[in-house]
């Protein structure tokens, strides 16, 4: 049972962190629970579908279907996260401020919620399909204390939900003023880390072979398979043996986010909003 708990927890841990962050980011947006809940639900359903077709998916692209699929959905999440940050740079003050009552903000707000719901769905999908496969294998095998393992699996999922809540309430302890800046940085790092992971998947599939020299090996300080290493891997994309390409992609995403936020971010602080005529 303990083994099952650990296996499942390891998978849902990452999704738990991401959902917690997204919940904190959207704390003041109306109807956010439906959106985020919908994202989780869609992720679970998609995970079941992916698990069902795991074998077929794997055989695509000369056996590299899994890697490419992961790379693609990570890229989708990166685009959504970056878009959210840029959008928040423009409209964040409206949402946080007293202007929230404006109907426009609600409509606009749901656009950003859709992006984040997609991110949540992707996070759940990626980790979920492995959990589904594992639990399905256990239940299908019946005989060897299947229920015991299944129980461990569900305990692991419950722990994942605890991680999510801890992340959420931990972030909410940050004063409202600083929270916006914090989550912006968190999301930018999250996006950069996911982009580097996508690059790593493309490297595994041999689709990306340029700049594949390993830049450093910090496994002796912090292995990315240790608990802290895994947490940092999810949050900021820490890897103990990054290739040049992964590093380049990581920095490029941070740069792109910064530039886009500058370009599209509202100059609201400098120029007062035009008076309604």
């Amino acid at each position, binding site marked *: 049972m303990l*083994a099952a708990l650990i*296996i499942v927890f390891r998978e849902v841990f990452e999704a738990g962190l991401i959902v917690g962050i997204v919940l904190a980011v959207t704390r003041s947006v109306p109807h956010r629970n439906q959106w985020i809940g919908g994202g989780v639900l869609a992720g679970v359903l998609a995970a079941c579908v992916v698990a069902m077709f*795991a*074998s077929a998916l*794997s*055989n695509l692209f*000369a*056996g*590299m279907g*899994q890697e490419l699929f992961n790379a693609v959905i990570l890229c989708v999440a990166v685009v959504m996260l970056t878009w959210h940050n840029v959008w928040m740079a423009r409209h964040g003050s409206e949402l946080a401020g007293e202007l929230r009552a404006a109907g426009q903000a609600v409509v606009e707000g749901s656009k950003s919620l859709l992006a984040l719901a997609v991110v949540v769905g992707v996070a759940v999908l990626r980790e979920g*399909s*492995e959990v589904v*496969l*594992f639990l*399905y*294998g*256990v239940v*299908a*095998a019946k005989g060897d204390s299947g229920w015991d393992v299944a129980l461990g699996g569900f305990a692991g999922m419950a722990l994942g939900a605890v991680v999510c809540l801890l992340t959420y309430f931990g972030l909410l302890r940050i004063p409202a003023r600083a929270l916006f800046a914090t989550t912006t940085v968190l999301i930018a790092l999250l996006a950069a880390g996911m982009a580097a992971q996508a690059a790593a998947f*493309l*490297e*595994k*599939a*041999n*689709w*990306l*072979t*340029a*700049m*594949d020299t390993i830049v450093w090996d910090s496994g002796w300080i912090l*292995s990315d*398979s240790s608990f802290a290493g895994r947490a940092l891997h999810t949050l900021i994309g820490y890897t103990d*043996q990054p290739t040049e*390409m992964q590093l380049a992609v990581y920095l490029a995403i941070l740069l*792109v986010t910064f530039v*886009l936020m500058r*370009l*599209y971010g509202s100059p609201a602080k400098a120029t007062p909003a035009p008076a309604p005529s």
Partner: protein
Amino acid sequence: MLVSKMLSKATLLAVVCAASVSAITVARAQSATEIQLSYKDKKFDPAEISAPVNTPIVIKLKNLDAKAMEFESKTLKVEKVVAGSSDAVINVRAQKAGRYEFFDEYNEKTARGALVVK
């Protein structure tokens, strides 16, 4: 304003796409060592495989069990789910000499094997 915004978004997307496509090369020029490995009754066969140093490795894994398994190696940086009764291809980058352990994540204690690079 909306149009210009969308235009610049499209340009950005195009640049990103172009950059990633140009970085992709069709196949690895260096020929890889191919290793056959099978998995049955929660055991790897053979339990120890070997490969020459500094060459990319391709592991062809046959999961003969009905249950899915997850081939994982922390030192080789590999993690791959293999559905029940199916095959998988695992690309491993060129390695330095050494012993690299791998296992089935779903049966970490018993299902273990190692790749020896020399």
